[in-house]
């Protein structure tokens, strides 16, 4: 029996280890800050869209989000007029693209600014990671990396993106606003990485409820049918 218990214990330990490494920063750098993100909050997502279009789109695209999507997704639900203001000459069915060409981006910053449509899914820590990066510009304690390039949470600490929200050396009075901007844009990005997530969870509740009922019925049916058998 001892080895069976060892087997069960190993299974449980492995599960816990797998889960733990996934949730912490996997031993890569300091623990991430926590962002208050609610992908069902239309107001937060809209504020995030404003930050995105005012600040981020200077260098970054979100090519999988079309201007028409900004009207069609209920979590954003802009009016035709609001979208017309945002899109300028671009067609409704075009994705949100920056005017900065990849060549110019690489020339100015050393790396092409990546498209942000999936960034929350593409980084360990998701929205918390994005929020931590935006509010992670500090002075390098070792004094090696210049101001504006040192980021506490970026792997290797040297980040090519210059401080977009001017976090470094900001006034105390502005902290709350900057933190909110960073959280709001993280919420927007968390939403667009998986725009059907709210619908998915809603349907999921019904499916799980139905399956619980089905499992119950089939369990009782099995017990009933097996009464015939001496087992």
């Amino acid at each position: 029996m001892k080895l069976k218990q060892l087997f069960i214990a190993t299974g449980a330990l492995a599960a816990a280890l797998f889960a733990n490494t996934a949730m912490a920063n996997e031993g890569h750098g300091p623990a991430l800050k926590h962002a208050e993100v609610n992908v069902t909050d239309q107001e937060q997502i809209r504020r995030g869209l404003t930050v995105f279009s005012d600040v981020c789109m200077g260098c970054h695209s979100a090519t999988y989000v079309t201007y028409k999507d900004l009207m069609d997704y209920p979590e954003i639900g802009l009016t035709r007029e609001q979208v017309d203001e945002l899109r300028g000459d671009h067609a409704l069915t075009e994705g949100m693209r920056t005017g900065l060409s990849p060549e110019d981006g690489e020339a100015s910053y050393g790396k092409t600014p990546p498209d942000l449509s999936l960034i929350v899914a593409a980084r360990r820590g998701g929205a918390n990671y994005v929020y931590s990066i935006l509010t992670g510009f500090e002075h390098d304690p070792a004094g090696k990396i210049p101001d504006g390039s040192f980021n506490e949470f970026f792997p290797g600490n040297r980040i090519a993106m210059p401080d977009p929200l001017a976090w470094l050396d900001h006034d105390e009075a502005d902290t709350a606003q900057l933190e909110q901007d960073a959280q709001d844009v993280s919420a927007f990005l968390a939403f667009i990485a998986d725009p059907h997530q709210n619908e998915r969870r809603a349907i999921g509740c019904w499916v799980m409820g139905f399956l619980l009922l089905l499992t119950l019925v089939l369990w009782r049916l099995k017990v009933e049918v097996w009464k015939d058998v001496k087992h």
Partner: protein
Amino acid sequence: MLNTIMKTKLFGWVDRRTGAEAIIKSQLTEYPAPKNLNYMWNFGSLALLVLVLQIVTGIFLAMYYKPSAAFTYGAYTVAFDSVERIMRDVNFGWLIRYMHAVGASAFFVVVYMHIGRGLYYGSYKEPRELLWIIGVVILLIMQGSAFFGYLLPWGQMSFWGATVITELFGALPVIGEYLQQLLRGGFAVGDPTLNRFFSLHYLFPLLLAAIVGGHIHALHVVHSNNPEGIDLTKPEEKIMFHPYYTVKDAFGVAVFLLGYCYFVFFNPQAWGYFIEVDNYVPANNLSTPAHIAPVWYLTPWYTILRSFESKLLGVIMMGASLAILFALPFLDRSKVRSARYRPVFKQMVYLFFVTVIVLGYCGHSAPTPTLKLVGQIATTYYFAFFLLLLVVPKFEKTKPEPEGI
């Protein structure tokens, strides 16, 4: 209800032209099965369910997926775009995609449990050796299919995983270089690779469907093993598959669906185990991600590969670790089947399960010296398990098996 259907005129018409009644009787209503099967025997029907799920979801995904590595905007490609189109624009595309991704992992969970049952209860022993061998073939085709499928989204993990694995084939002497070019359709993983992997990914599950048919046929000839491992000779020890095991399998399906749907609807990425974080980054052939690991269900074999200094030896031993599964029925000559009555074998089998989990953990993690050593120890036991079975029956004092159940 089945009886009612079988009494109708329509059924009679079909039966006269197909022999349907005889088939239903011989495979379901008059097909005897041991009455003492436990829930570990549910995993076969679950595996069939997941195969059907994968084929159906795969066919609908293939209506929109495009296997092309041509660039569209920035780092994005036609293939990557088509997956995002499925996720965003296709009606319920997100659901079908998540079902397929979660289903791939679910398939391996179910099949590993099914194999574990076979190992513990001696279901690979006479007269079920061929049944076991067909099963190992199924496992290999599943692994191939999963490997081909993983390239299709053309993310960073897709690309680099395919690069590493096709690189392995290059290690073989003489034919290695040509084999690698044959697989890749070029000198590096690229558009030709993607296109042919799509074709093969479509083909393999259909091959699987045929081979699973053979697996079930082989089973129905020799009939199921049971937890006691003994041959059942008395009729009262058996019950008809329908309705007893159809109803028990249906209950098992419902429980399975609870777990499966939890992941599909609430946690499809499964913390990066079902859909890896790096695969949301489009493939870049000039930049390798910091941490490459295969998907969790292939990690044990990855550890075995990495346990050896020589690349060629690693490839050979990885192949050997799969090949040795074929030999199992002929290595273990004990007349006693079930671990319930084999105290030494029982400990060995549990240790084997622990070993596979440890191999998996090592394969998933970054290769530190400690983990490498742990992996090597685990690899050693993996092979030792099979080789020891050659001698264990000689000295193992098996417990007396019961006469009946």
